[in-house]
């Protein structure tokens, strides 16, 4: 346990120090959301209808685009070799790294959601619904995105390739995340059904993500 705690602590520390990218994700989120009205027009009624979709897209892109360095940095400086050799199972180490990333880069997105909800003319309940669905759904994004980050190490390519690989995998999360928040705002569905599916997706990705990432990393070593 101390080993995993140490890994989480280290990754969060690096993310928050100079040169770390934790807050750039939030800034990206903010920028994407601010761009939307320029494309669809400043009509507040329209914006409040599109609000959950815009917020979800922004959060999706922000959390995936910050992921591509998740394993790359450790691979480049040799840390990944030592992590692979250690007495901690690689699956757990991967899960710890993803958790650290979610804490440093995913949580701030959720904290920023109310402010952005204000810009998009969402009322209190709608904003709370979006924040709640993001809280339940972003772990799924991080843990599926982690697979792409591991593949990026294997293939020696990051950036866009990773996005192309991972974005299709995140479609279910997007569907049920937006559906659950829309259910609160306009109905006619209940909030419960899509939200529980969203939670289930998160739980499944918590299991699949680390195993797939570890398998990919093991084969990618050279």
């Amino acid at each position: 346990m101390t080993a995993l705690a140490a890994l989480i602590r280290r990754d969060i520390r690096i993310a928050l120090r100079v040169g770390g990218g934790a807050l750039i994700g939030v800034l990206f989120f903010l920028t994407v959301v601010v761009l939307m009205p320029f494309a669809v027009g400043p009509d507040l009624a329209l914006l409040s209808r599109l609000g959950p979709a815009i917020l979800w897209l922004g959060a999706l892109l922000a959390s995936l685009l910050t992921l591509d360095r998740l394993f790359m940095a450790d691979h480049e400086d040799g840390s990944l070799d030592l992590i692979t050799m250690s007495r901690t199972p690689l699956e757990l180490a991967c899960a710890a790294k993803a958790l650290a990333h979610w804490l440093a880069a995913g949580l701030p997105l959720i904290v920023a959601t109310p402010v952005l909800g204000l810009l998009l003319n969402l009322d209190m309940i709608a904003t709370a619904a979006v924040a709640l669905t993001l809280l339940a759904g972003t772990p799924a994004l991080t843990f599926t995105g982690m697979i792409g980050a591991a593949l990026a190490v294997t293939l020696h390519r990051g950036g866009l390739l990773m996005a192309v690989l991972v974005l299709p995998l995140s479609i279910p999360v997007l569907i049920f995340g937006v559906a659950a928040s829309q259910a609160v705002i306009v109905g006619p569905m209940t909030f419960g059904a899509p939200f529980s599916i969203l939670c289930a997706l998160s739980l499944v990705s918590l299991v699949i993500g680390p195993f797939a990432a570890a398998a990919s990393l093991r084969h990618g070593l050279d």
Partner: protein
Amino acid sequence: MTLIDLANPTRFLALTARVLPWLAAATIILLTIGLYQAALAPDDYQQGATVKIMFIHVPNAWLSMFVWGVMSIASLGTLVWRHPLADVAAKAAAPIGAAFTFLALLTGSLWGRPMWGTYWEWDARLTSVLILFLMYLGLMALWRAVDDPSRAARAAAVLTLVGAINLPIIKFSVDWWNTLHQPASVIRMGGSALDKSFLIPLLVMAVAFTLLFVTLHLAAMRNEILRRRVRSLQMMQASRMAFSSDMAAGSREDNASKEAGAA
């Protein structure tokens, strides 16, 4: 005292230490006068008492642009004149400018709520300030992304100047976009027709906030110079260790273990 004299950081620090108390005192006095006058100002016949928000909103909005102007001049100083303090000035100004811009947005939104019924309206003026705020944050992210300040300085200077050129273009586009979608903005400040009873406190507050910025900026520049000294001393310490490492073990051991305990 010319600009050349200020090039020496040590002399700059000495000057700062002498000037800062006076600046702070002047800021406090002017702020007090401004706040007093703002409290006495009459209500607007249309907006009622909410017009009082103007006395802090407008100075913050003015500073949000003024600080970018200061940073642009400092960036010219970095790129063209290679003034050694220019990038210090640019770096120190960014977070302060971002804070004032944030306040302009916040007070604007609090002012807008009684007027529009919502906290946020994609009004041309507010939207432009929001974009300015994003650019401040981006600039701060750039400063933070690179460990070596002198390397970050060039990139930040280019970005600041590009921003300065782009800001009017952005403002124009946003205005155009806005009129495309809705009639002109809701708040109608009479411009120069503003009544004297509003204008004087507003001017006093604007000057007071500008002084506040100058005070904070000088203090932040001083911190930045000291931070760079810490950095260069640490680098010296690192390189000195290479020579002394063979004989060091004994004499410094108790010192080191004490530090590790603290960590």
